[in-house]
């Protein structure tokens, strides 16, 4: 590659090296990250990232919070796809307490999680467009994201930091308005998405900007702990939904797209295809949505209906126990992972029987793969480094926890 041969002999650097402070608040970095770059003209010689600007001590906070109060913390990890984080956490607790969900609850979760994956990927790919100079697609894809948020609002009342679902299932059944909105989305989204796709995917300017920008080879990506679309763009078909199926993902048929070069263009194309595969999953889950309860019978964790609390003694007792966190918790340790918007989002929970976790560790895919960033941008142009960062979809909330 031309870039590497350029750096194999450093003697053709002309002039002086400049230090460029990119961030922490820079409009092109889409978040609070600092990179101190050594620049030779417009080429990057080395980069040194500093992170932690929005560190909120989630792992420490979790040691002081009962299980149901940890869900809002998980909202604020990858806030572009909060429901996946919420449900990953619920499944971790369900694994600890040995709770099995009815099929309907699992299918409902799959629909919500795949909608969030679409929202997450849409924002990332639209922003890649913005950073290559194509703002139009972004404005239209944000409307699609709003439609997804409208659906979340129907299910849980919130849009961004959703706190969706409960330990033991969903907090309520899908409302008629949700059904209407989902049907409308499934009917009209593909055409609008194709329009966006046609603007960029084979666009000469876009391809010239993206192909070869910030590449990473498959073996380096694995060694750096990459997961999710960034790893798949490098050609490795690792997907948690297939390797360790959770929440009935084994019931659905979908493909895992992979790229070849692990560059910005491959990351873009892999995410585009994952959106289509997510739609496939939603179609299957929605068309086969089983009848039945939308939550498991775990009264010690799942709040009873309010009318029952007012009329039934047992419901009142359980309501009190759930709110006051007087529920016995099993002693033990569990690891659970879900395929988040950016890869394997893991929860390692150690319980000593207390009402709060003894230790809760989040495996945050962004934090793990962002350390490869200096290696990926070495020798590239500054404008390519900006593009590489947006195509890696580094979300500050997940990076800094």
């Amino acid at each position, binding site marked *: 590659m031309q870039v590497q041969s350029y750096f194999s002999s450093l003697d053709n650097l002309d002039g002086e090296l400049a230090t460029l402070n990119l961030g922490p608040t820079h409009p092109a970095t889409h978040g609070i990250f600092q990179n101190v770059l050594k620049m030779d003209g417009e080429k990057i010689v080395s980069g040194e990232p500093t*992170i*932690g600007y929005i*560190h909120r*001590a989630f*792992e*420490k*906070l979790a*040691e*002081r919070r009962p299980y149901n109060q940890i869900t809002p913390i998980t909202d604020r990890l990858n806030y572009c796809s909060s429901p996946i984080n919420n449900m990953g956490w619920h499944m971790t607790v369900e*694994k*600890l307490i040995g709770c099995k969900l009815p099929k309907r609850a699992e299918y409902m979760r799959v629909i919500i999680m795949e909608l969030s994956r679409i929202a997450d990927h849409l924002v990332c790919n639209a922003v890649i467009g913005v950073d290559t100079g194509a703002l139009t697609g972004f404005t239209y894809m944000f409307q699609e994201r709003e439609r997804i948020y409208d659906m979340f609002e129907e299910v849980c009342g919130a849009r961004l930091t959703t706190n969706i679902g409960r330990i033991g299932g969903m907090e309520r059944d899908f409302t008629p308005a949700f059904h209407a909105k989902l049907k409308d989305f499934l009917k009209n989204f593909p055409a609008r998405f194709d329009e966006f796709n046609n603007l960029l995917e084979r666009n000469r300017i876009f391809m010239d900007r993206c192909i070869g920008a910030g590449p990473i080879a498959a073996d*380096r990506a*694995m*060694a*750096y*702990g990459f997961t999710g679309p960034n790893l798949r763009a490098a050609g490795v078909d*690792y997907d948690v*939904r*297939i*390797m*360790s*199926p*959770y929440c009935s*993902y*084994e*019931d*659905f*048929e*979908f493909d895992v797209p992979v790229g070849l070069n692990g560059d910005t263009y491959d990351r873009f194309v892999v995410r585009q295809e994952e959106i289509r595969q997510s739609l496939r999953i939603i179609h299957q889950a929605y068309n086969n949505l089983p009848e039945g309860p939308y939550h498991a019978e775990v009264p010690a964790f799942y709040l009873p209906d309010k009318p029952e609390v007012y009329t039934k003694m047992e419901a009142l007792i359980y309501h009190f126990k759930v709110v006051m*966190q*007087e529920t*016995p*918790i*099993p*002693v*033990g*340790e*569990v*690891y*659970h*992972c879900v395929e988040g918007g950016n890869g*394997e989002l*893991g929860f*390692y929970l*150690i319980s*000593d*029987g*207390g*009402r709060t976790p*003894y*230790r809760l*560790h989040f*495996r945050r895919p962004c*934090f*793990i793969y*962002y*350390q*490869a960033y200096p290696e990926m941008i070495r020798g590239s142009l500054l404008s390519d480094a900006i593009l590489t960062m947006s195509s890696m979809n580094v979300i500050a909330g997940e990076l*800094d*926890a």
Partner: protein
Amino acid sequence: MASCPGLLNIFEQGTNPAILNMYEQILASIEQQMPGTVLSSDTALDGILNLNTSREKVHSLLQFLRDDAQLQFNFLTSLCGVHYPDRTGQELGLVYHLHSWTNNTRLRIKISFPSDEPNVPTATNLWPTANWMERQEYDFFGINFVGHPDLRRILNVDDLGVFPMRKEYKLEDGTRTDKDDRFFGRDGHVGQTFETNLID
């Protein structure tokens, strides 16, 4: 069906006889290559095999697990510290999560060591991804990863002065009585397991 044919769901590991058989093979091949490395082992609630070892042997164990042609634990999923202030001489712990993508098996490696001498060999020469993971656990617990190329704080400010995830640093003030741990499954000493909960 989405799941790969021939691959077992790791979260059925505890109950599936094929997986239990595989665990025995893993233990046997470690014992054959590196006798005495695994101090004890058990299967956790989530079906993942736990291996306890010492910090002197952990690096060679990780290397063996990564490079062995059969086992192929190629992926370091995560690495995290734990603090048990009541375990005198073994206050700090470190948990490695390994994943073999070829066999779809997960493994947990645990070590423990005293908090006044928290030296652990680095895994950065096995996996570059361990770099920031180790910096994070240094930042949180003060674990000194010997041989780490750049052991600095990563999420907290450089002059924080304490290792905040250690249990002696409490969140919120200690005067609240409505959250007295003694009434909620802990007898007031963090790190000690209470067998029966007070209120059932």
